[in-house]
């Protein structure tokens, strides 16, 4: 099959009419190029959007309390209530599928006044009371010192981990940060660490201007008793938080004597569902890219098939001679198929290479001109390349099949008669 004579012949046939071969090859080249570029563009958009999620654990929901809207068990409606610190244990015991449960409290926030003082400098920051687990749900990189640990929670230590943005506001350049004190709403906290967050979207700067203190110290210092502002709950891998959220909300309603049908009393945001929605959007986009790309490729393939038919027609007499000399039909079929696959594969590989070059150029341009919103690192995986090559071989086979059949259908006597 792979002997020299056969290859020599394939090359002889394909090079006998360069212009025609090139035109035919261009159809396949164009098809695969479009497929690759579409897939890469889709991937770029996907990367861009996913970067907006940052490092946040996506299998997470946030849950908070609001006012009740229904009277229940002798309690009136329009009642304010709050999650309690013991709710954490309740969820832990009832839902073994949960990985992290982080009760949180917050001070300051949007348009809050200055609440942090160091020496003569002041600033307005979000102050969070947190458990150590939060670093797994809202990941940050500790750039110096350490994060909150369980002893801090236990001993209600007044310590703080501050963002790089806070450091640049309150400290002089090069100043030692860890070991200094800052005054948060009139209470002194010892800075034990600094962090940096990786986040690509607009509030990246705000992400660096936060202060984390132990939950227990926060409650004590700012008079929150055992109240919890909201909770970030992450499920274990393999269980989606979406499937758990109904029963989590149900359990909390029961605990806090909220009417089971009160839809307003407990609010939540399901990050996983949002993420999945985006995921399925990209699934649809990939499908469209393949659909359009394969269709364009198909017209190229039909071109190849067409040309192979013409080649067979032109060589009818030659095929007749060969058969008179004793060439077997399968050998003729193989010849036509190999010519078709060879042409498809070569032009397809040119298309893939050119597409890769194009993507490389776009990436270089993106790198040079800074990040573009919602578009990051367009690329195609090795899997896509292998997939495209498979598509090419299969389509080469398909393109050659009909011409090959027509080549062996001609009886040698008829082929020889054509003058």
């Amino acid at each position, binding site marked *: 099959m792979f002997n020299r004579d056969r290859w020599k012949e394939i090359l002889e046939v394909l090079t006998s009419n360069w212009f025609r071969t090139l035109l035919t090859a261009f159809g396949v080249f164009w098809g695969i190029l479009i497929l690759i570029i579409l897939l890469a563009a889709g991937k770029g958009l996907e990367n861009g959007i996913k970067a907006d999620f940052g490092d946040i654990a996506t299998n997470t929901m946030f849950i908070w309390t609001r006012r009740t809207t229904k009277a229940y068990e002798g309690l009136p409606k329009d009642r304010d209530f709050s999650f309690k610190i013991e709710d954490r244990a309740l969820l832990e015991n009832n839902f073994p599928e949960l990985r992290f449960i982080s009760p949180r409290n917050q001070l300051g926030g949007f348009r809050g006044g200055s609440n942090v003082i160091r020496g003569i400098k002041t600033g307005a920051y979000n102050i969070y009371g947190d458990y150590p687990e939060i670093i797994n749900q809202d990941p940050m990189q500790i750039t110096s010192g350490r994060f909150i640990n369980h002893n801090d929670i236990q001993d209600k230590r007044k310590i703080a981990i501050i963002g790089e943005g806070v450091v640049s506001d309150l400290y002089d350049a090069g100043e030692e940060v860890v070991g200094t004190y800052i005054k948060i709403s009139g209470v002194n906290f010892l800075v034990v660490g600094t962090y940096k967050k990786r986040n690509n979207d607009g509030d990246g700067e705000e992400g660096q201007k936060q202060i984390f203190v132990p939950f227990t110290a926060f409650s004590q210092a700012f008079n929150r008793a055992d109240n919890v502002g909201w909770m970030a709950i992450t499920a274990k891998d393999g269980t989606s938080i979406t499937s758990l959220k109904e029963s989590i909300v149900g359990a909390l309603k029961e605990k806090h004597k909220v009417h089971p049908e009160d839809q307003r009393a407990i609010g939540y945001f399901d990050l996983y569902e949002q993420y999945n929605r985006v995921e399925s959007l990209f699934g649809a986009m990939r499908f469209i890219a393949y659909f359009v790309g394969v269709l364009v490729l198909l017209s190229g393939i039909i071109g190849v098939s067409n040309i192979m038919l013409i080649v067979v027609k032109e060589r009818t007499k030659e095929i007749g001679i060969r058969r008179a*000399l*004793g060439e077997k039909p399968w050998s003729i079929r193989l010849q036509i198929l190999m010519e078709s696959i060879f042409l498809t594969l070569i032009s397809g590989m040119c298309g893939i290479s050119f597409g890769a070059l194009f993507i490389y150029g776009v990436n270089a341009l993106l790198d040079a001109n800074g990040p573009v919103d919602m578009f990051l690192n367009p690329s195609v995986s090795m899997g896509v390349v292998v997939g495209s090559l498979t598509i090419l071989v299969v389509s080469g086979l398909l393109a050659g099949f009909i011409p090959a059949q027509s080549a062996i259908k001609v009886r040698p*006597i008829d082929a020889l008669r054509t003058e």
Partner: protein
Amino acid sequence: MIEIKDLHKSYKMGSNSLHVLKGINFTAEEGELVAIMGSSGSGKSTLLNILGMLDEADSGEYNLDGVPIKNLSETKAAKYRNKFLGFVFQSFNLINYKSAMENVALPLYYQKVGRKEREEKAIKYLEQVGLKEWAHHLPNELSGGQKQRVAIARAMAAEPKVLLADEPTGALDSKTSYEVMDLIQNINDQGNTILVVTHEEDIAHMCKRIIHLRDGVIVEDKKIKQVRASSYVQ
């Protein structure tokens, strides 16, 4: 060597069918040089095509070297053609993008003979037809007579049992015709069985036996005294 009994063949032309061969009986021994003559439409080419397994008879028997030729699959037919038969056509039918040597080597390629041996044999046969120096030329660089000699070399390369020539001199002038016939006679002298279809009397008389076909039947079958073509060739 060749044995046919009561061979019939008809072609369908639309609604009516054309009975071309109406019961042909004929035997050819090994080493014979037979001319098949007849006017156009007499069925001589059809007969040759059937003998060459390019076409199949409707009824009748055909034995080639003791092997019955009947209901062959295309693959089997290709194998038998390669093994038993060599073809020489009026229009030479060389493959025009292959050199003379490659053309001659083609039947050997289908026999899966190795490249080197193939080329050696091709050169040997080209030498026999006096075209060794032209081995690497393409057919369109050769004259008509040279092309036909390459075609004969190609037909001989597979060492077939029977050589079938369909109007081998039809496209040549008389001088080259005689040269080609001289070559055919020489090959016959070496003991090869050859069938020549022709409508030229002088060519037919260079064979050893003439069969006349008319309207699908053999009207005359006679042994003749061979005229040596070499007497015309200087």
